[in-house]
């Protein structure tokens, strides 16, 4: 069976800056991959190429055995790749249900008008939240009134509500209190159980070791490590990130 995502020899330069220098990156089905590296190592650029924000100068992207070229995040999303943005990408004034369905609202026709199907969206949205064991004080509160962890959960629920196969998360627990961060990490494990693969970009190695099956280390645009979690230690990974080990 082909890998869910296979990026081969990806290269990308921005003017004089070599952001990526022939990177291979693979994500299998039901797998959590931790993507680590120092600032400027190329993590974000690699993921932006995967989601179609940037186009690679060289290299190929394969999705479940098919060569793909994504020209926009919309195209990658249609193919089951979702990104949870660091600033969450939620409309603060809308409630959880409205946010989950934002841009993909369910509608019906009444008397010649195409109207929102609020009841249907609430039913589906609650079902999805329950499936991920996400609990909120109310699905009708504007998300600005939810805690940081609850908002992060809503953002993840939004990303996974429409048959996502891969969710990319950029520092999902960075700004959260410890108990809330734990819940988000548990949510990542639950996604894997439900057959959704996750790429976790994080500086918090503890989190990465907690949930990842595999850890990929980038250093100045090159892949310097691709290790199964049980085969490595935090010291090894730190060494690769700062680039002193062989």
């Amino acid at each position, binding site marked *: 069976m082909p890998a869910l995502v296979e990026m081969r020899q990806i290269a990308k330069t921005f003017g004089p800056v070599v952001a990526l220098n022939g990177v291979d990156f693979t994500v299998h089905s039901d797998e959590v991959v931790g993507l680590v590296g120092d600032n400027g190592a190329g993590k974000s650029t690699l993921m932006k190429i995967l989601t179609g924000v940037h186009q690679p100068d060289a290299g190929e992207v394969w999705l479940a055995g098919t060569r793909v070229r994504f020209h926009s*995040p*919309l195209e990658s*999303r249609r193919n089951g790749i979702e990104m949870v*943005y660091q*600033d*969450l*990408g*939620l*409309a*603060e*004034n*809308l*409630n959880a249900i*409205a*946010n989950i369905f*934002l*841009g*993909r*609202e369910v*509608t019906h026709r009444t008397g010649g*008008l*195409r*109207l*929102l199907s609020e009841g249907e969206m609430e039913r589906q949205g*609650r079902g999805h*939240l*329950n499936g991920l064991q996400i*609990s*909120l*004080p*109310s*699905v*009708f*509160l504007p998300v600005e*009134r939810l*805690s940081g962890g*609850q908002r992060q959960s809503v953002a993840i629920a939004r990303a996974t509500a429409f048959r996502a196969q891969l969710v990319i998360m950029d520092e999902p627990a960075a700004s959260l209190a410890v108990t809330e961060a734990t819940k988000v990490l548990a949510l990542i494990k639950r996604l894997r159980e439900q057959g959704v693969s996750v790429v976790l970009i994080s500086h918090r190695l503890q989190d990465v070791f907690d949930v990842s099956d595999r850890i990929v280390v980038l250093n100045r645009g090159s892949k310097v490590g691709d290790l199964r979690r049980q085969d490595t230690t935090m010291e090894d990974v730190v060494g690769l990130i700062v680039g002193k080990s062989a």
Partner: protein
Amino acid sequence: MMQLEGAPSAKAAIVRRLAPSHAAVGRFGLILVMALMMAILTILQPAYFLTRENLTNIARQISSNAILALGEFAVIVTAGIDLSVGSVMGLSMIVLALAVHAEWAAGLAALAALLAGLGVGLINGLALTRLHLPHPFIATLATLNIARGATYLLSGGVPISGLPRAVRLWGAEDITLFGGTSFPIDFPISFLIVIALYLAVWVFLTKTRTGRHVYAIGGSPKAAQYAGINIPRNLTLVYALSGGLAGVAGVLLAGRVNSGYPTAGTGAELDAIAAVIIGGASFFGGRGTAGGVFIGAVIMGLLRNGLNLMNVSVFWQQVLLGFIILLAVYLDVLRRRAMRLEG
């Protein structure tokens, strides 16, 4: 801290029922203010305030401002501003009067006035989204001047009086509702139009995809963009709507005063903004309801009417309006603070 949705306790059920009602609390406060003003006016002017004549008079007087405020509200939901609505209303009146005097059919003349408003609104939207002017304040400040100048040029700076009844009736006449029953009511046509437009915009903003997207753009443009919402298209639509509604307001005002005069609507954009703010919409976008704005417009109308009845000078009226705006927004600040403490 997190209440499980799947296993609702009685408390959770209560919380859930109360949770969405904060908007309602705000609106309830507004209704209370409106009721209080009516009660005070009834006590102070028992012989006159509650007469049918006075009430329909208020309804007719607030029609134009209510409609301008409705369009302004849609714009403010997107965190924008439309300074041109007063000038556009003036332009619409003059276009209507000129068309009528050029022997156009009444319906056609009204349509031309409406299209003039829609056209300026469209220009506002395109200037913002295509020319990428930095803030809607700029684009609509420009069209405020352009539309006002055009109004003076078209009219030669003098009022154009005398409109046919078919045009006047929209702004000036009553229609008998429930005529067949034992409770016939003579209702101002202009106020019926106001109610219909508010209902239509309420449905548009709260029941349709586009309306949901308009709120999302006002709440978080970035989130809207991530969600694949076409922001330029939605903004253009909202500014066109505001212009079109200003066109309607011009037709009603022309009917009420039986003329088009070039100074009409000077400064009216500020009254419209005041009604939106008193009505509880946030100047920073994403928040507010059409119902609240409607009450905001009614409160302003009651204030003017009451102070007129009591022979308070218009200068003092303006001072008081300023205080009402301060008070309304301050109450909103207090409500939000209470909400945050509770949450």
